[in-house]
């Protein structure tokens, strides 16, 4: 090229990078305008921080029944800000440690659920043949099977451990995502650039991974935070029913223990309230972030 000193020639990659940076900046700015979403993020940061710092704040020996120092179901006082449980452990220490399991299960189960849901959704939308129809039917079938009874059956058969709880919640909560992704896939596949890709000889994998997936991802992202909220609630419910890991403290298992130890008839509100309040705050935070993401990514749903 002998053109006289034009603007610096950008490579295609650099253009893409610049566009992505701009898109990210726009996204962050849009998200900041959603006050409820920002509040949700702030709450989550606090809880994740607490969960990570749990071993520093309260030594793990505080969780051992044999080393408990308090009395049975002791009301809050100076040394135990949230009172004690039925074995004399500090409820505050239990709640902080419980955040670890609840958040871990919520996030890990969501990852499984998203992976299955996205895969099934894209495949059922992309393949118009019998495979797509079969996957769609499968999604519909799993959508009608009531979640908790199925989760209970699976958890009972698999046995209680942390990993099994994650698996059970993950493999029972994907159909909603799959249906959402399928609808989005169908609308993407109808666009001309996919026809172009097909005509140029792009294979199934190329079409799905290069064209459909990037267009479906934003939706999946917003859906993810909402699914985490539901997964945390599910973990709480399963643990309350005694199907969680018996050797780990989670908010659900605390409620199970409180119920079994007769905290209700003893009037031990300090044992019942904290784990439930934590669940409500964290689930609400994830829901607010998810709604804010939806508003940012899908302007149609934006409200005044």
């Amino acid at each position: 090229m002998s053109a006289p000193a034009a603007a610096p020639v950008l490579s295609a990659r650099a253009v893409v990078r610049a566009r992505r940076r701009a898109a990210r900046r726009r996204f962050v700015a849009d998200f900041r305008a959603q006050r409820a979403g920002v509040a949700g993020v702030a709450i989550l940061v606090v809880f994740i921080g607490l969960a990570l710092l749990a071993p520093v704040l309260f030594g793990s020996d505080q969780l051992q029944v044999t080393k408990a120092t308090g009395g049975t179901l002791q009301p809050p006082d100076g040394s135990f800000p949230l009172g004690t449980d039925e074995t004399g452990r500090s409820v505050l220490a239990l709640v902080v440690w419980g955040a670890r399991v609840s958040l871990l299960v919520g996030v890990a189960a969501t990852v499984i659920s998203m992976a299955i849901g996205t895969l099934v959704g894209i495949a059922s939308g992309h393949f118009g043949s019998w495979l797509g129809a079969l996957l769609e039917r499968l999604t519909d079938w799993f959508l009608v099977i009531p979640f908790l009874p199925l989760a209970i059956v699976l958890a009972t058969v698999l046995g209680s451990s942390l990993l099994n709880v994650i698996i059970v919640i993950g493999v029972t909560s994907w159909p909603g995502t799959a249906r959402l992704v399928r609808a989005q896939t169908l609308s993407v596949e109808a666009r001309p650039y996919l026809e172009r890709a097909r005509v140029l000889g792009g294979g199934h994998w190329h079409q799905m991974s290069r064209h459909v997936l990037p267009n479906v991802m934003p939706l999946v992202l917003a859906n993810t935070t909402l699914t985490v909220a539901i997964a945390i609630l599910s973990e709480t419910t399963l643990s309350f029913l005694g199907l969680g890991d018996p050797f780990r403290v989670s908010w659900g298992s605390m409620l199970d223990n409180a119920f079994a130890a007769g905290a209700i008839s003893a009037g031990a509100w300090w044992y019942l309230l904290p784990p439930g309040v934590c669940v409500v705050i964290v689930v609400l935070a994830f829901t607010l972030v998810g709604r804010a993401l939806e508003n940012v990514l899908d302007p149609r749903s934006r409200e005044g």
Partner: protein
Amino acid sequence: MTLIATDVPSPSPEDDRGRQRRRRGGLAGFAVRRLLTGIGTMAFVLVFNFFLFRLLPGDPIALYTRGRNTDREQIAALRRALNKPIGEQFVNYLKNPFSSGVDSTQFSRPVWDVIGDYVWPTLVLLGTATVLSAVIGIAIGIKGGWRRGSTFDRTSTAATLTLYAMPEFWLGMVLLILFSTGVGVFPGVFPSGGTLTPGLDPWSVDGILDQAWHLCLPATTLTLAYLAEYALVMRSSLVDELGQDYLMTARAKGLMDRLVRRRHAVPNALLPTITLVFLNIGFVVSGAITVETVFSWPGLGLLSYQAIRGPDVPLLQAIFLLFSLSVVAANLVADVVVAAVDPRVRT
């Protein structure tokens, strides 16, 4: 808003042509097609239920007898039942899906007999809570959606989102500790559980009042837990209608705001919520399991809890089947009813 309503059918481009063609089939054709799909789903649930307990790892006999004292003869009988060819087992299962060939390990009775005793209290509790939550939730949704951004709207959205984030059994325990045990200024006036004070005749006037008194707290818990979703969905579908041309027409005719809302906007916005009330049976059932446990309400939920704690696998299997089939049936009824009311959805 797709917070919860992910299972409300969304139109997709490929469906449009099909809808044009199929609409001519009319309601009867739609009902028949829907019935066939429903039967297909039920068949899937039956097959799934059968293989779920046979494909998963582990010794089925150990699973069936975990936590129980069993003598050698019982184990031998179980082994004979489970060692039959899989085809024969499947045929036997199809003849009577609820028996699974093994009695309930806790009650030592056929599982179907056990379940029969527990159906009625669950129907009463869930029926009350569903009606109340639908009525209250829809009313809140209409009021908030119509005056979008008002103080009522913002307060009710915050409140319903909080209720939605609450584990329903925890809400039940909090209500129990406040209004049954009594803490601080809260009076402990309500019973702590069960359906009837022992010694009362359930069919006398006192007995019926006493049962209603026992129903108060669990029904309140479930109503609060369910109404959040109805209010949120009703609000968002009313908001969707707000910009429509027919509302402008109604206003231009000089109708009062109240009449525009009641005669024009609400009937159109009501449908998704009504559908949701039916589709939610699965969610409702899940709430019943934990809340009945907290209130010792002798229904299917408490029975499930006992089956889990056993664990009583044959009973669990039958309850799972019952819950799944009722959800499929409820979905079927919902679709046909909605299609009868609204021709637009006959796809």
